[in-house]
């Protein structure tokens, strides 16, 4: 290869520049954390905060397939129907999750906007705050 | 070998840039359609397929026509077609890519196109259509690149390519048979619900495709040193002639069945096309133009004196192409939807968006074909102006 040293040097510069954000963030704690507003009369959620943080999209995808494609509508946890205020909980973002987490912009959007995540679910699904207008 | 498409004369690059401009314009119109929706087309609740799908239908036939040069050469050792097979295969590649693009621009949710392969549905003809189109593209790319690559090295192609080429022959027939099945299996659309849909597709494919190939070969002879000779052109012309005769014959058969039986479900659609229906006659002049072109084509192609004369051959081939393009690209799809299942006549006309996007897609196809032909002719050293030595 001709100009090996120049090429390797340029390559190194490029990789360093390209991965710079990783280096900046990997030392010390990040100085910004999105502030999310939890619902006021918050009893319990169907799973722990940590679990939901990781898996809420997987849960929603699974619910979507169960409700739309298999017509199985009620959430079953550990073998028995999950109850919220004595009623069987539906596997539905609108009917279940957003009954407590009814403020999309202060709960969902805070993290999503920070991470530049744009779930296209809202192309079709309607958030409660759109209706309140 | 691909780098040969990136070197060329001033004329070559002017042509490429012209095509790129058209593609850019088409792209802008498509971007608007992608953002706002297919409401920018002339389509409606009643006429839900229109110009885009019609172009796809027509181009599937052109794509399949490569088999008309491949079959005689590889299966029957008709040596006269030796120089032309690569051109047929490259034309097929361009046509198949255009088919796929026309489908993509017609889809409501094109980003979900992969769903067809994630959730294959074996009873859906559209699934099989996508499989066969994709397979045909891959087949033609492999075959053309391997054979041309071998030619470039001055050796015979590897022996395993022969069964692949033979395999591409029934596959070519399958792509437009499956496309015909898209239409001919629908009980809801009596205009399409005819067993002769697939034979008509075959006949129009084997007429329009080789006719286009003849025209292209003559253009190439003018622009470059590439001359296939008189024999292959005449043989192709005979194929076009018989195919066109069959095509017109099949059309007359359809008209007989419709009008002799008098079933409204069948006659009304023909009336829309050839006499107008409830005051809607926009398609009538086009369909009769198609008939006129067909008559001119048949006369010039059947009469041996005019078929042999290249001036008349050009008019004949162009007439074949135009007649079939109007029939399939303008008439067939729209007439299937009008009158609608409730007997109402709701008209359709393509909008500027549809036309410009279609121009863009045709330009992409022509660009691909130009590039591929440039490669083929460079390999054969048949360009008028010599390229840089490779």
């Amino acid at each position, binding site marked *: 290869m001709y100009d090996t040293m120049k090429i390797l040097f340029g390559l190194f510069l490029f990789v360093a520049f390209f991965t710079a954000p990783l280096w900046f963030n990997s030392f010390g704690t990040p100085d910004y954390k999105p502030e999310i507003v939890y619902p006021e009369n918050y009893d319990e959620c169907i799973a722990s905060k940590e679990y939901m943080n990781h898996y809420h999209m997987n849960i929603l995808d699974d619910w979507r397939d169960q409700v739309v494609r298999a017509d199985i509508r009620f959430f079953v946890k550990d073998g028995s129907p999950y109850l919220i205020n004595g009623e069987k909980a539906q596997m539905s973002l*609108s009917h279940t999750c957003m009954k407590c987490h009814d403020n999309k912009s202060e709960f969902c959007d805070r993290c999503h906007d920070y991470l530049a995540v744009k779930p296209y679910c809202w192309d*079709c699904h309607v958030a409660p705050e759109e209706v309140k207008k | 070998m691909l780098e040969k498409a990136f070197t060329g004369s001033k004329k070559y690059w002017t042509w490429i840039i012209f095509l790129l401009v058209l593609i850019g314009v088409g792209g802008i119109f498509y971007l608007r359609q992608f953002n706002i929706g*297919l*409401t920018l087309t002339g389509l409606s*609740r009643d006429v839900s397929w229109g110009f885009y799908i019609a172009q796809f239908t027509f181009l599937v036939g052109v794509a399949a026509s490569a088999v008309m040069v491949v079959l005689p050469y590889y299966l029957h050792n008709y040596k006269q077609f030796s120089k032309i097979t690569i051109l047929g295969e490259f034309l097929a590649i361009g046509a198949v890519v255009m088919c796929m693009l026309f489908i993509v621009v017609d889809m409501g949710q*094109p980003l979900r196109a992969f769903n067809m392969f994630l959730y*294959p*549905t074996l009873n859906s003809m559209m699934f099989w259509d996508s499989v066969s189109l994709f397979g045909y593209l891959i087949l033609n790319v492999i075959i053309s690149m391997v054979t041309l690559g071998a030619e470039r090295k001055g050796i015979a192609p590897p022996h395993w390519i022969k069964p692949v080429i033979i395999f591409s022959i029934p596959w070519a027939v399958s792509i437009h048979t499956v496309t015909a099945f898209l239409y001919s299996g629908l009980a809801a659309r009596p205009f399409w619900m005819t067993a002769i849909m697939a034979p008509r597709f075959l006949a129009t494919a084997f007429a329009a495709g080789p006719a286009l190939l003849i025209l292209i070969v003559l253009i190439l002879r003018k622009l470059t040193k590439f001359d296939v000779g008189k024999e292959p052109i005449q043989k192709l012309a005979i194929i076009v002639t018989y195919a066109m005769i069959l095509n017109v014959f099949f059309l007359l058969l359809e008209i007989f069945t419709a009008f002799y039986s008098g079933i409204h479900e069948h006659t009304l659609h023909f009336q829309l096309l050839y006499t107008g229906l409830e005051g809607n006659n926009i398609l009538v002049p086009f369909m009769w133009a198609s008939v006129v072109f067909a008559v001119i084509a048949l006369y010039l192609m059947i009469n041996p004196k005019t078929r042999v004369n290249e001036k008349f051959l050009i008019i004949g081939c162009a007439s074949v192409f135009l007649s079939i393009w109007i029939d399939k690209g303008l008439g067939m799809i729209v007439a299937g939807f009008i009158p609608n299942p409730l007997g109402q006549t709701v008209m359709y006309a393509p909008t500027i968006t549809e036309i410009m996007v279609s121009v863009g897609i045709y330009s992409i196809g022509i660009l691909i074909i130009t590039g591929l032909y440039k490669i083929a002719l460079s390999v054969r050293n048949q360009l008028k102006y010599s390229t840089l030595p490779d």
Partner: protein
Amino acid sequence: MNRRNFIKIVSFGGAVTVATKLSIDAFSGTNANQHSGKRWAMVIDTRKCIAQGGECRKCIEACNDSHNIPKFENPKDEIHWIWKDKFKNAFITSENHYLPQKLNEQKVLLLCNHCDNPPCTNVCPTKATWKRDDGIVMMDWHRCIGCRYCIAACPYGSRSFNWRDPRQNIGNLRDDYPARTKGVVEKCTFCDELIARGGMPACVSACEEGALRFGDLNNPDSDVRKILLDNFSIRRKPELGTSPEVYYIV
């Protein structure tokens, strides 16, 4: 290894992977069927659908309202799940110029017939529409690619396509039902979300004349079975072999 061989190996490996996944998927089972032998059907009693001089639209408004159905002025963008058209159009294959003028011109309700042998589900390339075991022809708007093959296949004109984003044109937006987006096909689903909770379709509940009946054909005591036993009924285009499950009493 040179560039060419590398590309060949990667493409071939990729193709084999895709082909394997396709083959596995093609033979995978269908969705869970657990509706215990029900077969939903609807009976429309055209003799009773005459309120407000035949201009009553309570069922249509109820459906449009509960499902975020948009209203477009431009007829080519229109979305209809349930709508009215003249008898002579609804039953085009029973052309009869000497039917009483009133009957020929009478508006009848039209909707998806939830056929027993649906041509639309036969042609959908992604199974975005399919027939449930309880008879409902269902829609999955997550999967629909908007190819409109189902629209071409429906002999009754029951399906609509979202030519543009419907959100702006929805009168009374509700959050308990999705609004759908541009580029997907939609139609009546017999209010599967209400039936799942033991309810009736919105149109049936809204009709105050008793013109709409809904029930389980497999249950000999159901509303629909009884009314079909006692009254002459017709279906749209039965000769096509679709076996529509919306019956019209004339």
